């Protein structure tokens, strides 16, 4: 691959909080923010941004939630980009809450996306919420393969080396009388499921049947937060 950004040496990575792990032979890093960093390829991957969610809800006659979710999501993404100096960004689907939401994004947010895209390869993977191309820069793909890894929105039954999102997994841990529940990465020998990165996103417990079925074998959960931690995936 051809690096598009210049001068991004690995010494420029300035992550504070992360958990390193190996997946299908690749050294990967789960960031506390919920983003995935692949140092060797200088790829930053985020899933389920759900930009424009509050706008979509109100457009459809729902309640008017504080309209700051897209700004907050993009601000966090900009910080991860600043710290990683990523050369490639993969948005793993459901980047927009629907295609109309991608068009209704305020000028300020569009401008921020453009600024983040400058000098980088940017890949929008299609999701079930945003199944078509959006009117923004970057490449639109249904899935993307790099080395031994494949990036797609929804995990497939026989996927191997597969990195996906969609389910918004979360995991909880009972520690000394209190239960701590966080969005979580789920990983086993064949697949990795990312937590949702968007601000207004809920989570699906990893004990849910659909996730338990996907994450067979010795699965682990990495809880996000200011100090991410790895635990055996609760079942």
């Amino acid at each position, binding site marked *: 691959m051809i690096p598009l950004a210049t001068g991004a040496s690995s010494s420029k990575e300035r992550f504070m909080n992360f*958990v*390193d*792990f190996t997946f299908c032979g690749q050294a990967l890093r789960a960031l506390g923010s919920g983003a995935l960093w692949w140092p060797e390829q200088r790829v930053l991957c985020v899933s389920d941004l759900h930009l424009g969610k*509050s*706008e979509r809800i*109100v*457009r459809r*006659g*729902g*309640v*008017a*939630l*504080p*309209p*700051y*979710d897209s*700004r*907050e999501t993009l601000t966090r993404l900009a910080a991860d980009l600043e710290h990683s100096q990523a050369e490639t960004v993969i948005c793993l689907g459901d980047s927009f809450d629907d295609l109309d939401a991608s068009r209704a994004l*305020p000028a300020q947010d569009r401008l921020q996306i453009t600024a983040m895209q400058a000098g980088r390869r940017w890949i929008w993977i299609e999701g079930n919420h945003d199944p078509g191309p959006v009117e923004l820069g970057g490449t639109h793909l249904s899935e993307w393969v790099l080395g031994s890894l494949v990036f797609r929105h929804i995990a497939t039954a026989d996927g191997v080396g597969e990195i996906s999102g969609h*389910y*918004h997994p979360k995991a*909880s*841990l*009972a*520690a*000394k*009388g*209190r*239960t*701590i*529940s966080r969005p979580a990465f789920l990983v086993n020998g064949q697949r990795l499921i990312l937590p949702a990165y968007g*601000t*207004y*996103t*809920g*989570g*699906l*417990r990893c*004990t*849910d049947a659909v996730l338990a079925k996907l994450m067979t074998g010795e699965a*682990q959960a990495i*809880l996000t*937060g*200011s*100090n991410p*931690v*790895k*635990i*055996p995936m609760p079942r």
Partner: protein
Amino acid sequence: MTQIPSRITDWFSQKGWSIHPHQQDMFDRAQEPACLLIAPTGGGKTMAGFLPSLAELGEGGHDGLHTIYVSPLKALAADIKRNLRTPVDEIGLPIRIEDRTGDTSATRKKRQRADPPHILLTTPESLALLTSYEDAARMFSGTRRIIVDEIHALAESKRGDQLMLALARLQTLCPELRRVGLSATVEDPDAIARFLARHPDPCHIVQADPGPDPDIAMLQTEEMPPWSGGGAAYAIPAVLEQIKKHKTTLIFHNTRAQAEIFFHNLWLANDDALPIGIHHGSLERQQREKVEAAMVRGDLRAIVCTGSLDLGIDWGDVDLVIQIGAPKNVKRLVQRIGRANHRYNAPSKALLVPANRFEVVECVAALEAVKAHDLDGDPRAAGPRDVLCQHILIAAASGPFDADMLYAELTSAGPYAALRRDSFDACLEFCATGGYALRAYDRWQRLQQRPDGLWQLRDPRAAQRIRMNLGTIQDTDTLKVRLKRSRGGKPLGEVEEAFAASLTPGDTFLIGGQIVRYEGLREMVVEVNRRADRKPKIATFSGTKFATSTQLSDRILRMFAQPDWPQLPKHTAEWLALQRQMSRLPQRERLLIESFPNDGREHLCVYGFAGRNAQQTLGLLLTKRMEETGLAPLGFVATDYATLIWGLEAVTDPRPLFNIDALREGLDTWLAGNAVMKRTFRASATIAGLIERKTAGQKKSGRQATFSSDILYDTLLKYDPDHLLMQITREEAMRGLVDFGRIEAMISRIGDRIDLLRLDRVSPLAAPLFLEVGKVPVKGAAEERLLAEESARLLQAAGLAAQ
């Protein structure tokens, strides 16, 4: 004196009853725009409310609704229907009576709107819902009277504020509407009258003969109460003795968890197998109804209960009320005592059981207050704006409205009489656009102003959503508990979601007096099996934890000022004397702070007597201030009377810590991120319509679509801190769980009269605090550290490397 129609008085005579003076008085004043009756239970209060309706309707010729009766309990509406039916049928009055609550079938509700009865018995929520329909004017036309029962209870909650707004609406629809309030004994009848009447109408107060003073005492026990805790297990044998001596005993508890534990212990000691039941709000409805029915039949000798039996159906045969734990509030105690012996003019009998040594003092103070007829209560705050937002949405659901007229109408409601126009406009703006600093949704406004100036829903289908989210009662996230059977076993009740999440299969807990074993979670139902052989974990219920009232706290402090305490049991008097000798007793006009080392750590005990919620908040604010000044606090614990803080450094100058401006700033900045504030926000945001209640279907399906309201709070705090809902959250924080208002009151009362006493060891008064549960660790990073430790342990246990 107005003559009550003879066929009604004849019926009374046939029954061997006579009209009470207050019933006659209420009848004489039937034409007044508003009237409030204050009477003890058993005083024929309901009949006093209905007599004018029966007389007016008895003449015949009235079409449609005449009288609306509102009570806080569904069960009460159904009960009144039965009780009213008897005289109406026996006298032969041509009156149709129906009830309408959340339990009424949809077809019946529909028919009631087309063809309303003469007398409609309902709840505040059902009434508000009725006003939200486009045909409300037709349904209510001609209504003459509204009777608000148990108005003292409604006036303490947002349900009452909502009801008074609905009344303002009704008054516009039916200008001839007259209002009647029925109340138990309260400390400030004038406040209830202002609450009830259309502002600025006068409201006459009729005081019934309060009857003889109750026969009330502390329960004598062999064993001394323990130093701390709330279970009162020591009193079980003495309580059983009392149950045996009386026909039917109600045993009140302050929390559901305590009721469960006490019932469990009582059952273990119940060698004579006396029939005893349990009743609280987290139990399955069928189970509660079963207990109520058994009670009415006289099959039960005792019921262990909580505030769920504070109101409601008259239990004729109750001859003893036992209050376990300090009553916290004298007025509620008096009302609870009134549950015993509903025969008018017979004294009620009650016993108080302190759960620990400090509560002995509190119980004695409460007894003295009851004897002195000195009731407590906080002055009613102005009507909250989250309820107002919901009212605006309800108005919009019923049809286009004019903002000026709506404002004029709702300021006729007592709680909103002083509402400023700009306050109202902010609420209207919130309902229309969300009211955000970022004008994002102008295209999608919820309410739009038409060219003729009226406001209406942009999407008429929104009316349905507004109706589905109506109401001010907060349901915490609870999960149903069922016995595990192949086809779904018997429902037992509910536990909080957070408690369910902390369970692992095999854990045991108490529910409905049974020990059950957690088996697993299926489709959001907690499945359990009966299990009698293990010591239970305790179910956590959110039932309100009441703080000791200001007046009762003051009484305790006045008692502390006595030279000796002949009214206290010897063990408790000696304890206080020892405190006076070793340290000092707290005084009302001063703030006592003790500083002492214990077990290698420095301790600070602050006797604020501000009630548990305020003392808890004080702990949060003080430890934050201490952290900033390098005093390295490690944790604290709070009770109704004190906060105990431990840390590495001794405090030598407390004055900077108690600077009110600094504390207030802490409330605005640091406490803003606290979980209690987030809970407060969530309640208001739900009432105001920003968060929609989850339907049963949504609860069952996965949770991806919904996200925590904490995220909304954090977002507003960061991007829009002056948003209306943030203002409301701060207003709410002055009361309730945060209760900052009482911290302010305490600090303004003591000024700089702070006494810091350095002791060489724990003082007698501080000692029980060490045994309190609910210690709060002070570490911003506490959760992260717990997480790190626990994950390392788990990974190790699983044979995995940490990274």
